[in-house]
């Protein structure tokens, strides 16, 4: 009898669960004027100075601002500062602060906050937090001072040596100087304010009603974290996500009835990076041969439906005036020439090497597969080895222990930043590229205050990289964004951001 009553109880419970299930499938009522944005990476820190991943920075862009911030054309426009000036010798930057900027906790931004924030990013605070990402480029700063005159506060940044590009790094977020909970409840000055964060699940922010500039149109933004692009795609199909920025071309084709597909370019230099110090890539001829053997057009067609932008050197197309278009055609696809060069270098029958690819980047893995097939045609065997991101960082990036890898390099809005990977002897030069010519030109370009001259020098630097075949610079991949048909105003930027302040719901 007892057994039977237990069975009956179980039966009842299952009915309860199943009926609960029916209720649950009803769609949750969505807050009016809100949007759900899908992201595929969990956030690595909520403190903007500690965030490392591009996937985190693109979210935090909505909460924080620097003295200046990038606009959609790649210009730096005043934000917390009202205006700025760079002295003619390129050694002094002065910023006049806005008077009406308030942090999300209600406090007014003071000179003290600005000094604290800048010094924290530059590693100039007396007690430093080792988790803070110190911006290496800011080490040219000798001191930062504040002065007030007629009620207007001016921040003056003095440099040890001339550098007119530093403005691109002064986008560093302004945060309150006396606030301890930045890591868990971030406070900034951006158009949205932080509401909540649940690890592995979501980050919620709401409109900042006190914002000094053009206020956001949406009331609430939820960044919903998915396990992978595939998992996010399932949510897209069920319309649980309104905006999703990392579609593949196959996925985009399946969504067209419910979503508008916006197409832009990623702010990345995607390349097959070759370790210039290991055999056989220590030979320039071999590197050139690999360059001739890679068919970039085919990569674009196979992976992006022909979209995206081919590159030929270390700067991506989003840099506009600083992008050297000529390098794109330094090596056009020519397998015969590749074979010739290989024979000349002493490898008439080709060779085999291992290309390590971080397994979490499906796109780079797919690129590797296409390239492996292309290299096979000239007798080169490329073995693909998938590794964890943590291993990539320690083995490839820190220890320079690899033969070849496929990765995308991103950057601040300064040409010196995207080209820093090739400076001789630098720890960041993971491909071990060495060229005195490049180093000289790079140094001169950073120092010059003459814009035309600067441009010319950077063009030259890129040409050196291309001529030496430092690596195979492939493309800035296309970025396909699904935006639900209910919204308009999605904006692309030449850096990694998801700006939700421009998005709105048009009246019907």
């Amino acid at each position, binding site marked *: 009898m007892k057994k039977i009553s237990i069975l009956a109880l179980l039966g009842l419970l299952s009915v309860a669960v199943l009926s609960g299930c*029916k209720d649950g499938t009803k769609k949750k009522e969505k807050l009016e004027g809100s949007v759900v944005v899908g992201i595929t990476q969990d956030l690595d820190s909520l403190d903007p100075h500690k965030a490392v991943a591009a996937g985190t920075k693109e979210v935090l862009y909505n909460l924080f601002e620097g003295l200046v911030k990038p606009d959609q054309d790649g210009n730096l426009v005043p934000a917390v500062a009202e205006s700025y000036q760079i002295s003619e010798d390129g050694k002094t930057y002065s910023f006049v602060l806005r008077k009406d900027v308030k942090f999300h906790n209600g406090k007014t931004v003071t000179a003290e906050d600005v000094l604290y924030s800048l010094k924290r990013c530059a590693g100039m605070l007396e007690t430093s937090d080792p988790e803070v990402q110190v911006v290496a480029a800011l080490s040219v700063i000798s001191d930062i001072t504040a002065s007030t005159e007629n009620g207007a506060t001016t921040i003056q940044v003095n440099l040890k040596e001339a550098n007119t590009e530093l403005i691109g790094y002064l986008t560093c977020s302004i945060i309150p100087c006396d606030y301890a909970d930045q890591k868990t409840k971030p406070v900034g000055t951006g158009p949205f304010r932080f509401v909540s964060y*649940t690890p592995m699940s979501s980050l919620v922010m709401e409109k900042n009603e006190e914002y000094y500039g053009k206020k956001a149109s949406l009331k609430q933004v939820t960044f919903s974290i998915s396990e992978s692009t595939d998992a996010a795609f399932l949510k897209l*199909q069920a319309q649980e996500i309104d905006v999703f920025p990392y579609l593949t071309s196959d996925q985009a084709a399946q969504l067209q009835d419910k979503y508008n597909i916006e197409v832009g370019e990623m702010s990345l230099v995607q390349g097959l990076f070759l370790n210039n110090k290991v055999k056989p890539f220590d030979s320039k001829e071999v590197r050139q041969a690999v360059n001739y053997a890679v068919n970039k057009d085919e990569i674009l067609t196979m992976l992006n439906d022909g979209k995206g932008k081919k590159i030929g050197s270390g700067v991506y197309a989003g840099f506009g005036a600083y992008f050297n278009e000529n390098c794109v055609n330094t090596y056009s696809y020519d397998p015969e020439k590749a074979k010739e060069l290989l024979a000349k270098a002493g490898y008439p029958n080709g060779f085999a090497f291992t290309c390590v690819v971080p397994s979490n980047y499906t796109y780079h893995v797919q690129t590797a597969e296409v390239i492996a097939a292309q290299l096979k045609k000239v007798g080169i065997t490329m073995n693909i080895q998938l590794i964890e991101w943590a291993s990539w960082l320690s083995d490839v990036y*820190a220890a320079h222990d690899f033969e070849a890898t496929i990765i995308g390099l991103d950057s601040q809005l300064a040409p010196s930043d995207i080209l820093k990977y090739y400076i001789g002897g630098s720890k960041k030069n993971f491909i071990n590229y060495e060229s005195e010519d490049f180093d000289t030109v790079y140094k001169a370009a950073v120092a010059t205050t003459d814009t035309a001259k600067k441009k010319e020098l950077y063009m030259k630097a890129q040409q050196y990289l291309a001529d030496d075949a430092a690596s195979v610079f492939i493309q800035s991949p296309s970025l396909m964004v699904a935006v639900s048909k209910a919204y308009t105003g999605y904006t692309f930027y030449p850096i990694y951001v998801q700006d939700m302040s421009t998005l709105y719901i048009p009246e019907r």
Partner: protein
Amino acid sequence: MKAVKKGLSMLAAILVLSFVTFLAFEILPGDAAVTKLGTNATPEQIEALREEMGLNDPFLVRYGRWMGGACTGDFGMSNRYGRPVSELFLQMLPNTLLLAGLSFLLILIIAFPVGLLCGRYPGSIGDRTGVFLNQTLMAIPSFFLGILISVVLGLGLKLFTPGAFVPYDQGLGACLSYLFFPALAIALPKAAMTIRFLRSALLGERRKEYVRTARSKGLGEWEVLVKHLLPNALAATVTFLGVILSEIVAGSIVIEQVFGINGIGRLLVSSVANRDFNVVQALVLYIGIVVIVLNGVIESLVQKEGE
């Protein structure tokens, strides 16, 4: 005396487990400080962070420090999320426990009626179909069953939205109704195994002498089955269910991954990838304790019944 001995051996097992996990992380490539700071860090910054995280101390010193903390309930900070490990753990645990509870419930609901029916009418068409279905379900790996359920019940019949998991603290009803489907993916193969187990135990009992005695007393087939066969067949089945229970309470890593559930299993996977050492260590300890303690409890239960 016996209980003390048992407790000590459990403790020893847990100690060995924690030491081995520590050792595994020592051998694993990838450095926690490098992973945290990413591509823009200078060697000096990495060194400073390593120092702060205590990674520069000798292996045994670090193990001792961790053990000391763990004994007082302090599992350190997650370096990925910048919050205490215990807080993260407690945030994820209810989701895993709900999933485990629901799965176990489903196993019982499915396995007992079907198992009894098969035991009642062995060799009938129903029994043979049951056995065939059982074999099939047992052969399907749970991740594949998970994908199958997502595609058919989720995308096809639109009974739920795959991936749109709602954590328990944002709505228990919605959470449970979502968890029903992953629970199904966990329960079906395990229920199939239980049915097989129960059925063969019942058939084994049926051949024994006392059954004939019971029948000769004039008891009906069902009465014989429920009153005499089932209690005897139960001992072995309970042991088996215990193993299953410890498996699912420890977190179904694969199913949590497939269905995007924020539970222990998924946290474990992402923490290993991020070299979030303190979290991994605490989770492995939890899983170890669950398995060891549950197995111990069931062992003693079955022994008592046998006495």
